């Protein structure tokens, strides 16, 4: 397994009380797999993805990436994974307004370690996600779907083995959402592992596997449907 989260928890202190955003969550994603996480707003999906991406330290549990426990890594080592090994597409918009589209895509080359290889050309990636004609524009001039395509291109720049996307089709119309999802399917077919959050039932159908999150707890979807059958609430 490329990625294994083992009994991960994240608690926050809110107004003195301890609040559990993620509790005891375990998940696995293999090479070439497209895995979805669904769940209500506030159920802890983004928190879980942040932990898996190495952006948030879990309060408890381990995240094993490619055989190594990344929760034990120092910030510098961990950050070096992000980009070349783990591509992360945040929820919402995340392009820098002060940079052109092509510069936004090239940005990861200048933030990571110098030893890392350059990866695919930014222009070619923009073509691949169908945004080649937007290279010289600025984010303020793009539509939601276009912004999304550009941020996918940016996450792919360093050719990561794992791509994490938090609601990549969140604010898109069905056609656009399907097209963007198609991109993820292509990327998975090329061998990358993909972990994404979505609410769209049509897209969930197309995932290899699915987890559902509720109140910080994560369940593999088939397990949940079996259990929920017996629970009356």
């Amino acid at each position, binding site marked *: 397994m490329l990625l294994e989260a083992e009994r991960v928890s994240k608690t926050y202190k809110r107004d003195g009380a301890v609040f559990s955003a993620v509790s005891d969550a375990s998940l696995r994603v293999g090479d070439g797999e497209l895995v979805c996480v669904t769940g209500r707003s506030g159920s802890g999906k983004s928190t879980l993805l942040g932990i898996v991406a190495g952006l948030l330290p879990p309060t408890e549990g381990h995240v094993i990436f490619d055989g190594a426990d990344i929760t034990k890594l120092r910030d510098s080592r961990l950050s070096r994974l992000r980009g070349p090994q783990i591509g*992360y597409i945040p929820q919402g918009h995340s392009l820098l307004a002060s940079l052109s589209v092509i510069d936004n895509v090239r940005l990861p080359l200048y933030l990571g370690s110098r030893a890392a290889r350059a990866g695919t050309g930014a222009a070619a990636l923009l073509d691949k996600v169908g945004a080649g004609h937007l290279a010289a524009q600025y984010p303020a001039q793009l539509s939601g779907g276009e912004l999304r395509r550009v941020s996918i291109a940016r996450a792919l720049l360093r050719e990561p083995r794992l791509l994490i996307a938090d*609601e990549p089709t969140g604010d898109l119309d069905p056609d656009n959402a399907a097209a963007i999802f198609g991109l993820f399917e292509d990327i998975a077919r090329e061998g990358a592992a993909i972990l994404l959050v979505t609410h769209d039932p049509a897209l969930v159908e197309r995932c290899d596997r699915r987890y559902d999150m509720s109140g910080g707890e994560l369940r593999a979807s088939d397990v949940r449907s079996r259990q929920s059958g017996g629970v009356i609430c």
Partner: protein
Amino acid sequence: MKERRLTPLRLSLNSLARRPVRTACLSGIVALLAFVLIGGLLLSASLRGGVESARRRLGADALIVPTGYEQSVGGALLRGEPSAFYLDGAVAGELMELEGVAEASAQLFIASFDSPHCSQKVQMIGYDADSDFVVAPWLESAAPGGPGEGEIIVGSLINGKVGGELQFFKKYYKVVGKLEPTGMGFDTSVFLNMAAARDALREYVQLGGEGVPQDGEAISSIVVNVKDGVDVEEFAKNIRLGYRDSHVSVVLPQSLVTDASRGLGALLAVVAALSSLLWVLAAGVLALLFSLSANERMREFGVYRALGATRARLTAIVLTESAVVGLVGAVAGAGLLAVVFLSFERLLSVSLDMPYLRPTFASLAPTLTAVFTVSWLAPPVASLFSALRIGRLAAHSIIREGV
């Protein structure tokens, strides 16, 4: 399309250019800071230079002047307020022979009428080349042999060139030497030998000048060095008592300088305190602005973090940006000060009412650089806390939407 390298500097410039108002505010604060700090430094150094120069130039133990003119002689020497006052010639001769006198030499002051040669009135000083030990060696260095018949040596602020001629009263004088700046009254004085000075004084009287005794042997002051072991204060007191009826008094030049430097010390302390206070205030305001914009920009920095920037890298990006702001501001402030200072230095030095002599910029270079750097670094120092906070928190803000 031309590919630019997205270095931290490039990213900073981009982001600063995108927020012109904020950038202008931040740089403006630094510019003000640099202006005041560098200005304060130049002012302090120049006043100190003035007092130092006075200490060097007023190389006599005592100055004998008519009673009531103790202040004037200070003004004339330290600040260049022309004045003329006269001792009785016979008494003067007696004073120069007094017990305890090692060296003594007479000087004759004449205040010119308003003169076209200088923006200020000119003080004419006649001195006795044979006995003078205060200005003679200095004048010799400007014009070997000193001024002869019909010749003058001019202070640095007199608009006469060596070789040219200047008119005082009825007569033209040839300029044979020009003195280096002293920051004192000497800069607006012309020096001539005693015989020429007496002629000038006669013309002065003929043209309606007043207050000159009729005996023709008048002098204005006597510079005195006392013998080793003689107490100057005691010496001065004896003269004040013994010659009270002849209206003779004594000024101790070193005490003039000491007074000036005491006043200066207080002034410089105020300048230093205000500069430090301003730095702290500016850094405080900057810190506040940085922390406000840190919150607003947390997600932007989170993007860097999501794309592989380490905490340290983020901190470096923030600090680079504030260093750029600081540099822009410090350069602007220093430039503005240079323009203002160089245009108004003359006016300033005159209106300050203290000896004023600016050291060369070359000799001030190390301190100027230090003060410039201190202004420049105000924003990076002020943003340090925000920079560390951004490094710590940016990752949290990127995982959630629109935070």
